[in-house]
């Protein structure tokens, strides 16, 4: 199957998710990679759709990031199909793409035949992991030139403070809930995140986002982000069904909670019962030793 991987770039560099897009596309067949760096979102969509048509691709694969989901839908419409969005598993049945995607906020998985020509797919970040030695910077992508930028143009990106990693992209997430008791106490989690040396982000439950303690960008759950890090540490989070929906595909889940009957322990691989204000600093100390 002839496959087009649409990579993602910011500030002139390919983003980490790009190698995942290439990995996912590789499952379907021979891959060509393109990237569009124009601030004109419509211009990019037009260029990618034109490339997909002229190249006679059977499948076009995007990242299911904020940018990728937006672009995938624009391109798909121009190709006269819908997108199999936020896919977590891909296979081929003859020459038909079979995609599995979480629905109902991860409470069920929908397996679909993608019959569109081409099949347009976006893949969930942190799922299609490339071999450990592959780097996004080693990918070779054709840079598409854009005619008119169009009517929707990115004026600027207000970046999050340097050193903060987005929960959707972090390998390790430490999330806090009401058990933190006060917004200022999130510093305990931030210290633990720092101990992981740039790999970890701090997430939050809906309760604390609604209370205004943390930004919506940090929210994990049904009305926040769905994440699949290799390690998810839930601290002072009881585990409401809508939170579990957003993190249950994490590879390893650790729960720290004072209530031994909290539902979070039902999905956690490892649980520690007790006072988070004693447990988390101790954990931070141990992690620091490892990363020393």
């Amino acid at each position, binding site marked *: 199957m002839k496959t087009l991987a649409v990579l993602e770039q910011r500030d002139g560099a390919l983003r980490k998710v790009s190698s995942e897009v290439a990995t996912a596309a590789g499952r379907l067949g021979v891959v060509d990679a393109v990237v569009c760096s124009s601030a004109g979102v419509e211009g990019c969509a037009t260029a990618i759709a034109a490339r997909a048509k002229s190249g006679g691709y059977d499948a076009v694969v995007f990242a299911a990031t904020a940018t990728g989901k937006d672009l995938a839908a624009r391109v798909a419409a121009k190709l006269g199909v819908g997108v199999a969005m936020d896919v977590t598993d891909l296979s081929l049945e003859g020459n038909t793409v079979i995609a599995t995607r979480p629905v109902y906020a991860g409470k069920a998985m929908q397996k679909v035949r993608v019959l569109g020509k081409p099949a347009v797919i976006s893949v969930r970040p942190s799922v299609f992991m490339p071999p450990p030695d592959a780097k996004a910077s080693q990918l070779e992508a054709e840079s598409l030139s854009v005619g008119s930028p169009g009517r929707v143009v990115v004026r600027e990106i207000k970046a999050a403070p340097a050193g903060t990693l987005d929960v959707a992209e972090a390998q390790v997430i430490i999330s806090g809930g009401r058990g933190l008791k006060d917004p200022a106490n999130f510093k305990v989690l931030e210290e633990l995140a720092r101990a992981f040396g740039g790999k970890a982000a701090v997430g939050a439950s809906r309760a604390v986002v609604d209370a205004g303690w943390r930004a919506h960008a940090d929210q994990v759950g049904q009305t926040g982000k769905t994440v699949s890090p290799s390690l998810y540490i839930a601290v002072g989070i009881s585990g409401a069904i809508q939170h579990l929906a957003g993190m249950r595909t994490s590879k390893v889940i650790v729960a720290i909670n004072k209530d031994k009957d909290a539902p979070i322990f039902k999905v956690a691989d490892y649980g520690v019962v007790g006072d988070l204000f004693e447990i988390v600093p101790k*954990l931070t100390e141990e992690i620091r030793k490892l990363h020393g």
Partner: protein
Amino acid sequence: MKIAVCIKRVPDSETRVKISADGKSIDEAGVKFVMNPYDEFAVEEALRRKEKAGTGEVAVFCLGPAAAQETIRTALATGADRGVLLQVDKPPTDPFEAAKLIAAELKAGGAWDLILFGRLAIDDYNTQVGTLVAELLGLPCVTAVSHLDIDGTKGVAEREIEGGIEVVDFSLPAVLTTDKGLNEPRYPALKGIMAAKKKPLEVKPVQPGAGALEVVALMPPPDRKEGRIVGEGAGAVGELVRLLREEAKVL
């Protein structure tokens, strides 16, 4: 301002999903349905824009089963002027089929200044119908808007992206999809609920095409293997770290 808001009827976010006997859909018995939470931001934004302009219309469109009339009435109760139900037995699996039906109806309804959608529906998570409709109508589209300024036919929107906020210039008329943070949706007042009963709600049966996304199966998420309580208090941390290193191999 003439504003169209497209909403969807979905299972409440606290719903426990049970898969039906056909193995392809959920068992709707006992499920509470609500307006898609992201659509509430769209309805609220439309009402505020109309209130600010002092004149105009907010029309609500919904593709869904007969029971979705109730969802439309909820929007009318908060202040929308009229509703249209594009009635289907079941919304199509392929979002492109849904978009075609909605786009055709919006086109027949004349010139809109704004067309608003929630950024995604919390049932199928397709995250694209607004964009597909925009493309079908040839209108500019900005997705996942969490902040919005409009001045005449010029708009500036902010949207959350990984690791930052994107500031986007666009021109009106446009299709926007709304995210949490854009506004604080109001609740319907009793007076609004009474008034909603008398507001026009048109029901138009439509027939979606088969589409190009075919459900093979709906499955429960993979089971997580039974976890364990490592211990209590800070004393358990040593053992936790050992397990994360040696057993789970994530450190």
